[in-house]
């Protein structure tokens, strides 16, 4: 009889894997006192771990901004490094509050996987890296060449689609991990390798002689990278959206981490007043303290500052703003108005 008992107990245990959600994410995060943020830890510039063991990068700064806005403390973040395969499960099960891990916004992820995507924080696209001395300057020059790509990614499918559309015949070499791919490219075993351009720029500096390589101008796909939260919690979704819009608006109105406190007191511009909480209702509607956006800007700076600090000219990556410039400078970054 004990066998039966153990057996049925096991069944019950296995079968009962449902997590009851009693409260909203915003209240949950406040009670916990820290934000659990799903990040990348192997992509320099976007999400990586520095020598002191701290997470840093473009994506990581948005985690800090949300923590600063919600909890008043940019350091109240628990980072959860996730692999490409793990990331969606982590959001679905509620293991992370928000996923900011260079994740492309696609229809299937938005619907089938059950995510909600916030504002696009980086407009990316798939590109190619080649040796300068290879004579490859355009996609056509890849005719008859060996191209390395990582398996199980959208880049693999994009590559096949675009090359067959352009009638370019090449030899694909499929690698299991990004490390292997970069090593083989560095050894010259493939003529070109392809992934998101941000990834190319980020990994360029890990090659033995970065000077010898270049990223082709051609871009073969749209890869809008956006933060993601679980579908179904509008309150929390709004918080993530508007903190990021706040950082984008801040750049537009010239609010920086340096002058944010001063502007909060002195500025007479009603737009700035609304963002920084001098007119409390605009921010309080979102469910945050009146000075939440100001706290976030003080902690990590506006969108432009985050970009420059992690990816801009002073960094080894030096990625031009391009599509990620503000809309009035020809880019696509467009913060929705606080009103």
């Amino acid at each position: 009889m004990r066998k039966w008992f153990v057996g049925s107990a096991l069944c019950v245990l296995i079968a009962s894997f449902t997590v009851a959600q009693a409260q909203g994410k915003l209240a949950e995060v406040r009670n916990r006192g820290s934000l659990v943020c799903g990040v990348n830890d192997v992509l320099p510039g976007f999400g990586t771990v520095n020598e002191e063991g701290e997470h840093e990068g473009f994506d990581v700064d948005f985690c800090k901004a949300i923590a600063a806005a919600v909890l008043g403390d940019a350091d109240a973040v628990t980072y959860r490094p996730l692999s490409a395969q793990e990331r969606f499960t982590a959001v679905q099960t509620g293991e992370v509050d928000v996923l900011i891990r260079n994740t492309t916004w696609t229809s299937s992820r938005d619907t089938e996987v059950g995510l909600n995507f916030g504002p696009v924080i980086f407009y990316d696209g798939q590109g190619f890296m080649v040796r300068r001395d290879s004579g490859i300057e355009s996609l056509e020059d890849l005719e008859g060449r060996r191209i390395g790509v990582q398996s199980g990614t959208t880049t693999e499918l994009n590559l096949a689609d675009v090359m067959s559309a352009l009638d370019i015949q090449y030899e694909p070499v499929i690698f299991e991990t990004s490390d292997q791919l970069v090593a083989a490219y560095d050894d010259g075993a493939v003529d070109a390798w392809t992934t998101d351009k941000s990834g190319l720029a980020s990994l360029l500096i890990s090659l033995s002689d970065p000077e010898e390589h270049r990223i082709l101008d051609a871009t073969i796909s749209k890869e809008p990278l956006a933060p993601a939260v679980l579908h179904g919690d509008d309150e929390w979704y709004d918080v993530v959206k508007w903190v990021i819009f706040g950082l984008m608006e801040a750049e537009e109105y010239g609010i920086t981490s340096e002058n944010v406190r001063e502007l909060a007191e002195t500025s007479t511009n009603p737009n700035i007043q609304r963002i920084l909480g001098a007119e409390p209702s605009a921010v309080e509607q979102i469910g945050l303290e009146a000075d939440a956006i100001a706290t976030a800007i003080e902690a990590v700076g506006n969108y432009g500052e985050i970009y420059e600090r992690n990816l801009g000219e002073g960094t080894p990556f030096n990625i031009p703003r391009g599509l990620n410039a503000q809309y009035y400078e020809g880019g696509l970054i467009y913060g929705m108005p606080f009103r």
Partner: protein
Amino acid sequence: MATRSIRPTGGKERIPFYRNVKVIGILAQLIFLALVVMGFWVLYNNVTTALERANIPANFNFLRARAGIPIGESPIRYNTADTYARALWVGVLNTLKVSLVGVVLATLLGILVGVMRLSSNWLLRQIASIYVETIRNTPLAVQLVFWFFAVLVPLPPRISGPIELPGGAYFSQVGLALPWLYPSYSFSAWVPWLVGAVALFVLLVWVRWVQIRRSERPGNPWLLPLVAALGLAAVGYVVTERTSELPPTSTNYLPDRGRGTVFVEGEGGSSRFLPYAAVRVTIPEGQLRDITQSFNESRRRVYSSFRFPALRDHEVGAAEVTFADPESDAASRLSIHYLNFPSSGFLYEDRNGNGEYDPGEEVSEAGTGFNGVPLVLTVENFERRVVADRNGQFRMPQFEPVGAGGAAETAEAEAAPPPAASASPAALFGAPRTPTASGDEAAETGALEATVEVLPTGPLVLSVPTIPRSDYEGGVRLTAAFMALLLGLVIYTASFIAEIVRGGIQAVNKGQREAAKSLGLSDAQTFNLVVFPQALRIILPPLISQYLNLTKNSSLALLITYPDFFAIGRIVANQTGATVPIILIIIAGYLTISLIFAFILNIVNERLALVER
């Protein structure tokens, strides 16, 4: 009850069922069965509900969908428009390819090492035991990664400067390319002759067999029939070559793309490609372009070197390397030195003004070794014979008309219509760039004269590898991944086979050897005729399981980019999300392969086993 009545027993006592050993036994088994069934049910239920909840497909419908995944090497025709089922089939064939070749090589190496371990020569014996102990005590995955990432990719030269082996073979970090025979358009006409040759062989062997039996003297029944059959096949080959005619063909060679396809005109204006057609391309005058680069053969960046696609001496009438832009600053200061005209050389600065290169005059501008000075190779009377692949496609270096400089190219680029949005969205970083005009247009507007002739061939055509760009063309090609996998599997499995062989030989009774010696047989005869045949019976059963191990171990291929069954299965699972069905297919696939292997080998085993009376 305080008292217990003792019933007289009539020889038969009723035991309560819960103390009856028989009943308990049956009951225990029933309970166990129920537990197992329940366990499976729980698993099944869990999997299906979990899959349903997570929206993961749990059926096999995805197999008919367009795969869209690129696969590096395939023994059959495959492109990204094919289905997932075909992609998996390519994986099965790749697994079979490496397993079959691996089994043969591992057996040969294993027997050699096994015999070496018993050698009376001290050195041989030690080498063999060091080999066995080192290899079989290291994980196979480590060995595979070692062969691929530490030996075959970094050590051989780049494909632009391959090692040329005798017989027209090339070796580089991309792999090994060997000349190979392929069946041409007239092969089908030769098939009846081949069938006849085989029939003749069988018939003659039978006749000779009967003759030898009757004469009761030793004789070789194989030699004469073999010669006769080969003779017939050869006669058939010559006759077919003389009589069969090349069907009407057409080609669509694009010199600037460096590729073309051979088509055969069918009835009613239809045309389909002609596989393995021999093609001769002649170009009276054409140009190849290159940019100078660092000379990093030994990772010492000293020269600013150039390296055009490998042209062989007999393929070009005359060739000259010049600066693409004679007006440029580089052209006025630097001179060109040929190492291996016309393929490679480097730039130098003639500092002492004697008009020729002296050591020490090398240049390396910008300090990084990369110069980027464009050069052109003008070739006259280029002629190359290649054999098209199984898709009827052949590849050449990418020629441009003479004088097609940078100016012409940019004009063309500006004139080109904007690309289709799906194919090439605007650039994200830096200035947008429109791709240059497609090959068709360039071929129409360009002045490059190129003639393509499809050559008549015999039933078999010898395909010699060439390197048109940065990959091999023609011949048969062993990729670095395939070679690494094969090396790893063969060397690893052979160490086990060696031990099995050694054990088998040592198990043969010493008396057998002594008896053979006393009959006056030599050492070799003793081994070949007496010891080894008896050892084989002991060796074979464990050998079969080693063959199966090798086949299954080939699934480690995904570590080193070889597209085997498991690797492709994983990619498909990742792209479709149909993990469970794919795993089932993979299990069923390996099971089938292994069972077929085991079935065949067990038949062999039964034939060889000692017939006991």
